[in-house]
């Protein structure tokens, strides 16, 4: 910078961070929060593809993905509660929501979505639950009776009513899943003070990456659970999931790149800060990891898997690997947005650093525990509501 014109003079000539910007306030917990809600929204969409859009190939995972969504939804608030300075006051968000706050809606949107998801599960599983309840004894019998909402009626008339309600719930569930996650994107996208976050594309990117992570999560867990229980994997189902994964990932990746490109092309004074960030502290985690390794490679692998007919064994070998890569891509994206955005000081002159610790309150260990929790919950749910059973309580596949 030899000749300084107006904009250049304020650009990062030396690393200066506002004294209060040294500390990254939103760390691992806030990285996990959109990651978990994304998995929820994505898994729900897989289920809706079957229940609403009648993609028959997805029948084997349609029920499972609802339970998968539930397990993660139960844990979605945990990182938030762990993050809050006063978790005991969390209910204030429901009690006195500030109408102008983008965050205040979360309690309500979360609750509404939770209700829709639980109801949909209860209605879909009701015939199975009734059938299981008849065989069960003691506590389990009581539990099944509660889950069947105290009704043993599985007559044709009752099931017809249930079907209507299920269709309705699934239909409103899709916009709600989109709202839940688009809204999470807006929590960031609405912060004008942070140029990395403040873009109308943010809700869209969050939503698309949610779909991507949900589908990938379902592929991984489906294949894994089938393998360890020695069941037969429905190749057609996996193939269809891969196609959807590719489709959503095209959109996701393109919009992620478009966001950077439009910042670059418009080149407002914010770009000077962003440029320094992307070429400095975020270079490895964004360009190398998120874009280079975990976006470009899966992109072409998914393309090949969708366009070329692979041998079943090869397909089932690559599918979980590429899905795990996608899951990592989305986690990296959350990291680069949430933490990356905060690395830039609002001084527009420098960036702070952030290295998560293992044993602090919001450190790596709590993060791992929070990510294990939904898996444990899913396993417990599986003990009550079998993943691979049809209405008569008979094992499918």
């Amino acid at each position: 910078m030899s000749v300084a014109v107006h904009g250049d003079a304020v650009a990062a000539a030396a690393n200066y961070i506002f004294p209060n910007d040294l500390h990254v306030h939103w760390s691992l917990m806030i990285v996990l929060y959109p990651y978990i809600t994304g998995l929820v929204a994505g898994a729900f969409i897989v289920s809706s593809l079957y229940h609403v859009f009648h993609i028959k190939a997805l029948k084997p995972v349609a029920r499972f993905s609802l339970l998968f969504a539930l397990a993660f939804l139960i844990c979605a608030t945990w990182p938030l509660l762990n993050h809050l300075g006063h978790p005991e006051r969390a209910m204030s968000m429901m009690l006195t929501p500030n109408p102008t706050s983008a965050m205040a809606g979360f309690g309500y949107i979360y609750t509404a979505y939770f209700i829709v998801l639980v109801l949909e599960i209860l209605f879909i599983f009701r015939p199975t639950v009734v059938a299981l309840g008849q065989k069960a004894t003691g506590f389990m019998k009581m539990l099944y009776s509660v889950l069947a909402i105290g009704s043993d009626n599985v007559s044709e008339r009752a099931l017809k009513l249930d079907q209507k309600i299920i269709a309705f719930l699934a239909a409103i569930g899709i916009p709600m899943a989109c709202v839940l996650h688009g809204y999470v994107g807006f929590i960031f996208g609405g912060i004008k003070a942070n140029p990395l976050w403040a873009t109308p594309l943010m809700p869209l990117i969050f939503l698309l990456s949610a779909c991507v992570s949900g589908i990938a999560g379902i592929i991984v867990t489906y294949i894994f659970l089938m393998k360890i229980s020695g069941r037969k994997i429905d190749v057609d189902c996996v193939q269809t999931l891969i196609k959807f994964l590719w489709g959503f990932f095209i959109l996701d990746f393109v919009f992620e790149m478009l966001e950077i490109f439009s910042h670059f092309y418009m080149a407002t004074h914010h770009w000077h800060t962003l440029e320094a960030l992307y070429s400095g502290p975020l270079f490895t985690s964004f360009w190398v990891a998120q874009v280079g390794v975990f976006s470009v490679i899966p992109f072409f692998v998914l393309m090949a898997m969708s366009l070329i007919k692979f041998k079943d064994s090869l397909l089932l070998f690559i599918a979980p690997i590429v899905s795990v890569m996608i899951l990592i891509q989305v986690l990296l994206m959350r990291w680069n947005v949430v933490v990356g955005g905060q690395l830039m000081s609002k001084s527009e002159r420098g960036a702070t650093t952030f290295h998560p610790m293992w044993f602090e309150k919001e450190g790596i260990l709590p993060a791992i525990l929070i990510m294990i929790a939904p898996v444990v919950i899913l396993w417990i749910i599986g003990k009550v509501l079998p993943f691979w059973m049809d209405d008569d309580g008979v094992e499918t596949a």
Partner: protein
Amino acid sequence: MIDIEKEIQKDRRAFIKNVLSGTIAGSLLMVIPAGAALDGAIPEQIPGVRGDHSPFLKNQFVFIVDVTACIGCGSCCVADKNEYNVPDGNYRTWVERYVIDDHDEVFVDCPNGGLDGYTKPRTDIPYPVRDTFFVPKLCNMCQKPSCVQVCPVGATYRTEDGFILVDKKRCVGCGYCIQACPYSARYLNPVTKTADKCTWCYHRVREGLLPTCVNVCPVHARKFGDLNDKNSEVYKLLREPHVISVLKPGMGNQPALHYLGLRREVV
């Protein structure tokens, strides 16, 4: 050397006087409380405010920082820390040092928020220095505050007389306001686990006292006053042609904190 002798003599007399009156005054104080109430203890600095118990004052307060006057002594930072016992590493107010070299490169620093003053010159400036100045920062008391907009529970709010305050009994400590503030005036208080920031010394103003940083500034670089008072210094500064601006006007937050002689390099 006679004069020096006399000086010492004089000083000794002053010292004895000091000791005597100090002791007497001190011992008297031990017995007779001087009155806890501020009335009488500190002369009123903002007329017509003390004793007003209505929820909001009629005044329209503004804060003006004179960049051309500030000497970077950090009195304001010390006073602020004293007044609020601000935990180390967090800053309700801070003083930045700007150095611009003759290649127009801008160097800014702010070691410990300016709390320890500036005792050393910067040694990493490659070219001769063209210009250098100090810029004190504090809460901008925006008329359109982002922090109030985003607070999910209504724990931070703007009073009708223009103060933005944080209710520490209701703040959940989510940190959203910290993210939303374009000026990084907020921090999460590690003691109370709630958001915290400069209040323009609301409790002092309501007692008719100036904000503590304004009170201690030795060079009158910090000015606080009422725009409704046509004779006030702030009114004259803002209503007459002066080089005066706010920080990040493009954010649209409309701060009530103004800067006199603000340079374009300041963010």
